[in-house]
């Protein structure tokens, strides 16, 4: 059975994915994570952090929690139900860093963990930096969209 045949078989067996249920789960979990972030922002502001620092602290905290729960295998359980609800928040970015790194442990510290840690983070960083560089160049030379 080649790859395409397998894919067709898997799709037939899986049937139509319950889109509405998936969307509801993504909405509740995704919204919930953002709400948690907002509450956390309030806590950091209360502790005397500046607005910009508080935002970075929230990102770092969410990434830490995702890394921890990913390593413990809890994240995957939640992600299976929440779908895009855990993928799209920065939690999904963190999970995409940790999971390949964990899986590649047996392949060594350099080309295993060292390289695989960027499997998904690499493309994300690349296109973010590339986009920023294009924008910055246009902005600097032509005042953006001249």
């Amino acid at each position, binding site marked *: 059975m080649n790859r395409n045949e397998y894919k067709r078989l898997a799709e037939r067996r899986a049937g139509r994915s319950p889109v509405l249920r998936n969307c509801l789960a993504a909405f509740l979990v995704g*919204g919930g994570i*953002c709400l948690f972030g907002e509450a956390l922002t309030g806590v950091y502001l209360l502790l005397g952090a500046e607005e910009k620092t508080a935002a970075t602290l929230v990102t770092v905290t969410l990434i830490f929690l995702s890394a921890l729960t990913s390593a413990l295998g809890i994240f995957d359980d939640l992600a299976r139900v929440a779908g895009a609800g855990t993928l799209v928040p920065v939690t999904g970015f963190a999970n995409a860093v940790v999971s390949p790194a964990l899986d590649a442990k047996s392949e060594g510290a350099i080309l295993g963990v060292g390289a695989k840690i960027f499997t998904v983070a690499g493309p994300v960083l690349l296109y*973010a930096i590339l986009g920023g560089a294009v924008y910055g160049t246009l902005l600097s030379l032509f005042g953006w969209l001249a």
Partner: protein
Amino acid sequence: MQSFLSYLWVFLAGGGVCVIAQLLLDLTRLTPARVLVLYVTAGVALGALGLYEPLREVLGCGITVPLLGFGGNVAVGVREAVATEGLLGALTGGLRAAAGGTAAAIVFGYLAALIFSGKPKRL
């Protein structure tokens, strides 16, 4: 009441952003990795068009926590760097603005891989 409403906006925006991604996953052939790249690029575009900051003002973590915020941050950082450093800012501003999240993901990711063993695959 004011603060309840602002939390409601955060929840609705964050949830809505995720629903769009879920629809892309369910109804198109886009993989999760492609959705992430799409979102971060869309965030850069929002920032470049000057829409990210006003959205952030109203939606708070509803837009900063999704990966859109990572991209938006990069664009805003580039703009600030270009204002002070000129063309060089196009290269320095983005990573500087994204430094916290990027380093956190790499450091915590590495530590997680170091401390924990690969989890058994559950099917």
